[in-house]
């Protein structure tokens, strides 16, 4: 899979060329007035044209909300509390539903984790895809139908002519996700947002879907935002990665560098929580405690109660996201220590040893 990755991935830093979409200090707020809670607390990120940026985090980190805000699909009660979203030079954060409509599908496409709930159960799959062409691209019934079947073939659905007449529940999970991809890509959007696209799928099907996504992305020159909790998926398919914790970005940079030499203790903890293939059976270095409730985010660095490196400064002073190397940023007061010090992942130098060992 490494062959699909450009040698130098784009990075979510403002220094790069014109980004296709960029968030500036975005705040997403639940409720109003005194009871309002910030669920996303100031996220800035740029997605350069043609790259794949992965947003990684656990439940409640705000990664999915951030993705939904870029489609104007915030759940009821959640509003943009501050900051801005600029898509291709146009601020979109405060558009009305009517103003969003022409952007969705044509400019931005989205794939959800659970394709079954995102498809209309009562409409044949082919008709659902054809509807996109009919309503949005103004094609005639017959032509839309042909294009629908065509796009089903494109995403690798066998026997597409016949399968177009099936209902969503007659499809397996992997096939439904292919239908979602076909729909999301039908109007040739420029940005594809994939929210946990393979989480609900089996390992072997997951591989098929990721491969398909990357192939389609390259064929169309798409820009992609991949929301995921799975560092493995991210490492295989993303150019750069943004790690979120408690509604903030804690680290960003080219995925290969972030995942080999993380610059934030949370990223280090996440990676150590995944069973290490080189030390089977050894105790995992789990991150103690659990992610904070958005209503009671800890003072200073939100991660400090769970951080092995926490000091007094971390309890009082909110760390800013600052550059820690070429195209990299970390929101840790002691980022240099994390990268340079003993917090590195174990044995980054053992590639030869590993292959000789098995």
């Amino acid at each position, binding site marked *: 899979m490494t062959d699909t990755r450009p040698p130098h991935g784009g990075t979510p830093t403002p220094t790069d060329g014109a980004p296709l979409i960029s968030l500036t200090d975005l705040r997403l707020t639940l409720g109003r007035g005194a009871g309002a809670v910030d669920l996303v607390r100031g996220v800035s990120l740029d997605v350069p044209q043609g790259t794949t940026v992965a947003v990684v985090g656990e439940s409640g980190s705000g990664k999915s909300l951030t993705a939904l805000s870029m489609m104007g699909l915030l759940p009821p009660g959640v509003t943009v509390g501050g900051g801005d979203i600029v898509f291709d030079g146009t601020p979109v954060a405060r558009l009305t539903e009517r103003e969003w409509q022409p952007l969705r599908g044509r400019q931005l496409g989205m794939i959800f984790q659970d394709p079954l709930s995102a498809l209309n159960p009562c409409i044949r799959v082919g008709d659902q895809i054809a509807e996109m062409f009919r309503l949005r691209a103004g094609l005639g019934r017959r032509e839309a139908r042909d294009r629908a079947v065509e796009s089903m073939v494109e995403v690798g659905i066998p026997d597409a002519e016949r399968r177009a007449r099936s209902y969503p529940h007659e499809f*397996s999970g992997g096939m439904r996700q292919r239908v979602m991809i076909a729909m999301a890509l039908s109007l040739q959007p420029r940005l594809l947002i994939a929210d946990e696209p393979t989480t609900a799928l089996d390992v*072997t099907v997951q591989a098929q879907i990721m491969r398909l996504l990357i192939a389609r992305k390259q064929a169309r020159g798409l820009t992609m935002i991949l929301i995921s909790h799975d560092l*493995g998926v991210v490492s295989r398919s993303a150019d750069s990665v943004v790690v979120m914790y408690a509604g903030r970005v804690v680290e960003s940079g080219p995925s290969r560098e972030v995942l080999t030499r993380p610059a934030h203790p949370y990223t280090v903890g996440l990676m*150590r929580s995944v069973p290490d293939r080189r030390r089977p059976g050894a105790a995992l270095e789990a991150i103690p405690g659990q992610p904070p409730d958005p209503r009671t985010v800890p003072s200073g660095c939100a991660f400090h109660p769970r951080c092995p490196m926490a000091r007094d400064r971390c309890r009082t002073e909110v760390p800013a996201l600052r550059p820690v190397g070429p195209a990299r940023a970390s929101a840790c007061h002691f980022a240099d220590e994390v990268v340079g010090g003993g917090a590195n992942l174990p044995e980054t130098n053992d590639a030869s040893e590993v292959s000789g060992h098995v």
Partner: protein
Amino acid sequence: MSESTPVLRVKDLHVDYRLTGGLFSRGRRVRAVAGVDLVVPAGSTVGIVGESGCGKSTLARTIVGLLPPASGQVLLGDVDLATASRATRRRLRPDVQMVFQDPYASLNPWMTVRDLISEPWQIHPGIVPRERWDAEVDRLLELVGLRSSQRGLRPHQFSGGQRQRICIARSLAVRPKVIVCDEAVSALDVSIRAQILNLLRDVQAETGVSYVFVSHDLGVVRHIADSVAVMYLGRFVEQGRTDEVFGAPAHPYTQALLSAAPAVDDWRHDRPEEIVLGGEVPSPLAPPSGCRFRTRCFKARDSCAQIEPELTDWAAGHQVACHFAEADARYGIVG
């Protein structure tokens, strides 16, 4: 691997699922588990991996007695749970416990933690005398990393990871010999998952309980299991010591699974080209003739459609069911 006597053995187990029929049709039977043998040694962990629909959950639920076997045996010591009398089954029930996947659905929302943990003692008097219930609840809570002051709370006041701790405490309350974990950490966040995996390890070290660990996550099974069985369409296709099976997989399906599982540090390995299987798991209503995997197999030949391969010894502590088995360490994930 433990040399001790097995606490649980599964012999040639078949389990059927009945599909409810319509008005004019009789319900059809689907064979979800089609002839499976499994040995669970005392104090060890047996992993079962496979994709959804392969029958691994059905197998797990049959072992704990939630589903009746169609044929074959589930032997606890020397007693076959399927044919034993009601009284015997009731007496042996506590020996095999289960931790479920969804911590939000597997605890009775109306009961307090104390009630949840002590309920098994009400059902099976004699395990813990009533006057020691509180002390024992506290001990179990401490064992799973919760505080005794939390025993009056109800499940909704806990997070997912904490609920899974309560589930583990409840299953430990009856002093089981085997705990079946059915995707027990799959619903948890990465950092919480690691906590629970460590807890399971510590509990095993402390109590000597055995685990049957059912999961789709190869990395997790690799981490926790001493031996592993790879399941496909109701049958085991490869079985053996974890380091053997995952280090030098010999069945094409295991190779594909391992090659497809993404890992954080992929680029550090000289990985061969990823095997991407075509198609999806066929319906268990109509499994393919011969080898069940042949429709997706990159090695399939004509003979695979005729003769179903048996699980045969491949290496010491390693069995494979493939006519063209060939160990390939390149796909292994053991260093």
